[in-house]
């Protein structure tokens, strides 16, 4: 399906990452924003609100982040593509409803503009400390998709992708950006509406009286209907059967929850997206995502200039993690270098998937700004000279 012209501001614009995210949402057909203001995500809401009357989108500023995501889930069941935007502390508050979204299989998008945590941290400084939280932050078993844009253009593109994944697999999708990309102003090309693919909602089309809200297709994704159509369906956060009725014994738990993880795990090959350069002959592969990949790409160029065979694996989707690709590369490369703006999160996944075949170097974020390359460069140099040690993650000071 093509995008609705109404929401697409085609042309070339200079936009901040946050503004591009709002434009991406409107282009993807998002017509409801539930929000609660938190630095550094506010510009997304501001842009969305400014454009909402022209586009015909609705919004509400709720009393907290808990209710913001609750409202988004409610709105999604009316047939509107819905979104909320937040930052670390807000994301923590949204954790319960992330689980509800998973259990009700409600498509929605959460944009998390990461600042430094934990607690209040440094709200205006960029970090990537919520990456594992997006995967594991709500109680119980679930799988979602998380994307990590590294530029305003990607904020636009990945926001559309996020809505498409959420509709395709009926899940909450997280856009894991950060304060750096959010504020960065760059040229964003917004294509004409007929060049933007948007995933339509997977509606049920059979007879009204035989609708089962959680009857799964072969890909484990059930079909949805809007409220107010006379289906009079029931959905619940309790463990439920195809009818959506709560049944609380272990067979039903297996019947209900295992497919929730299968629908993502078994489609992982279709969902996972990475951008690779020169990985095939590389001695060292730099695995990066989001803002860090901006610095990583620069460092890689410098390292190549000094003669090191280094490739780049940039994660577009952080979750699901490109397990197979990392395992493949581990067999060829000598080492991975993983720069992150945290104390070690995605690097653990890299370590897990190397199976002892390559060293893993972790470069935590220093004090010198996001796009500082020196630490990454020296890690690449060290990695290219170290033999396989199988000793877990080697962290660089």
């Amino acid at each position, binding site marked *: 399906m093509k995008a609705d012209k109404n929401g697409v501001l085609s042309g070339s614009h200079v936009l901040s990452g946050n503004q591009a995210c709002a434009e991406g949402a409107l282009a993807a057909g998002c017509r409801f924003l539930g929000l609660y203001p938190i630095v550094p995500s506010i510009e997304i809401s501001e842009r969305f609100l400014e454009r909402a009357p022209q586009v015909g989108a609705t919004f509400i500023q709720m009393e907290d982040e*808990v209710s913001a995501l609750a409202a988004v889930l409610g709105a999604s069941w009316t047939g509107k593509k819905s979104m909320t935007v937040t930052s*670390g*502390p807000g*994301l*923590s508050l949204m*954790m*319960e409803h992330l*689980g*509800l979204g*998973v*259990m*009700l299989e409600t498509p929605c998008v959460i944009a998390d503009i*990461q600042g*430094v*945590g*934990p*607690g*209040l*941290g*440094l709200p205006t*400084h960029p970090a990537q*400390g919520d990456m*594992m*939280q997006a*995967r*594991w*932050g*709500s*109680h*119980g*078993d*679930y799988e979602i998709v998380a994307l990590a844009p590294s530029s305003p253009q990607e904020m636009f593109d990945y926001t559309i992708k996020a809505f498409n994944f959420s509709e395709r697999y009926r899940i909450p999708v997280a856009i894991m950006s950060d304060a750096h990309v959010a504020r960065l102003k760059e040229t964003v090309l917004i294509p004409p509406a007929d060049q933007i693919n948007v995933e339509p909602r997977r509606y049920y089309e059979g007879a009204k009286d035989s609708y089962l809200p959680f009857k799964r297709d072969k890909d484990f994704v059930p079909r949805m209907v809007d409220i107010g159509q006379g289906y009079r369906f029931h959905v619940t*956060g*309790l*463990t439920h*059967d195809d009818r959506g009725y709560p*049944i*609380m*014994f*272990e067979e039903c*738990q*297996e*019947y209900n*929850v*295992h497919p929730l*993880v299968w629908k993502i795990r078994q489609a992982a090959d279709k969902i996972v997206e990475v951008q690779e350069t020169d990985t095939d002959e590389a001695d060292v592969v730099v695995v990066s995502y989001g803002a860090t990949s901006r610095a990583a790409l620069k460092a890689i160029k410098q390292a190549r200039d000094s003669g090191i065979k280094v490739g780049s694996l940039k994660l577009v989707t952080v979750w699901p993690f490109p397990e197979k690709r990392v395992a493949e590369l581990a067999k060829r490369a000598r080492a991975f270098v993983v720069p992150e703006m*945290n*104390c070690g*999160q995605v690097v*653990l996944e890299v*370590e*897990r998937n*190397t*199976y*002892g075949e390559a060293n893993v170097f972790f470069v935590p*974020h*220093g*004090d010198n700004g996001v796009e500082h390359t020196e630490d990454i460069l020296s890690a690449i140099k060290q990695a290219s000279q170290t033999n396989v040690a*199988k000793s*877990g993650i080697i962290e660089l000071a």
Partner: protein
Amino acid sequence: MKANPKDVLTGIYYIDGDVASGYGALAAGCKFVAGYPITPSTEAFEAVCRRGPQVGAVFIQMEDELGSISAIVGAAWSGVKTMTITSGPGYSLMQECIGFGAMLETPFVLLNIQRGGPSTGVPTKTGQADIMQSRWGSHGDYELIALAPDSPQEMFDYTIKAFNLAEKYRCPVMIMSDECVGHMTEKVVIPEADGIEVEPRRLYTGPAEDYLPFKPEPDLVPKMAKAGDGLRLYITGLVHDERGYPVEDSAYKSKYVRRLVDKIRLNRNNIIELREEGTDDADVIVVSYGISSRVAVKGVEIAREKGIKVGTLRLVTVWPFPDDRMSELAKKARAFVVPEINYGQVVYDVARCAHGDANVVLVPHGGAGVHNPNDIADAIEMAVREEKKIEGLVEFKTRLQKSVFEGGFKLKE
């Protein structure tokens, strides 16, 4: 330091895990409990409500879980030992303040009686699917300690240990129990007070004008003070310097947040507690925690009867994770078998630490029940027969899964 005899309900009891944990908290000197009713953890809170006033402990039922955890962080800064009690959905709501507590280096204990999830799930039945959440559930970087007791007696003992670790490392400590252990009634022996070691708060005793609330000791843990002692504390969840003042300087970010993580990572060998049995010459090692480790005993027994050399490794502390020991064992054993009541959580860390030296088999269970020991035994057998090195997790197909998805099974009310 020994426990205060007034706090200890010495005797032999026949109580459930929830109640035992409540009594453990009182014995450890906990003087403030804030909670919000949530099945299946309510009995622990009720136990404190009944017994608390007799030993001078205050309790309050807050308006929600957000309020409960905020209240105990506040109470901790008034100088008392504190605890809150919850289950899955409440735990999700507490995530923001867990990070806040970690940032403030506030000692407190959180008892999570896990149930079937996600969302409301199966409130009355068991699960172990919050275990990764206990490590990663709040935003930003932090490290904390999580314990997984497997019997009412351990619920008592490890609640005391949780308080001791919280005071020693000034960090939130999670007791990641589950509905089975919480509602399991067994004999619990509460010893005399002089048989219970309790860790006192690491209070600052020097002159008021020299006090720096976040100046670390050699073990990276700073001394604490309490409100009302005339130190005029300034405590904030923003990144702060040693005085506690917020700083907009990224140098402090890497220095300060890093210490929060390092104070646990570098002390991990003092924190980690494992129970190993027959691991040294085992072909297969069963890694388990909480209720699953009790079920695993039977599975291991069945496998041993078939002549398989099986060792068991029980994670008493799940976090910090015993990376080094796991890597060491991976070099010796052929495979790890990990039964847990979720669709794969701690098994990822086992696989990570195996570094490709041993295969890793997950025996999953969605919750609302425990494993069938025969599944664990079969998984052990499968693991020992596998000669090849397998990349990726091997997910064992349980009898439950087969019966639900392959046996023409129909759900009935």
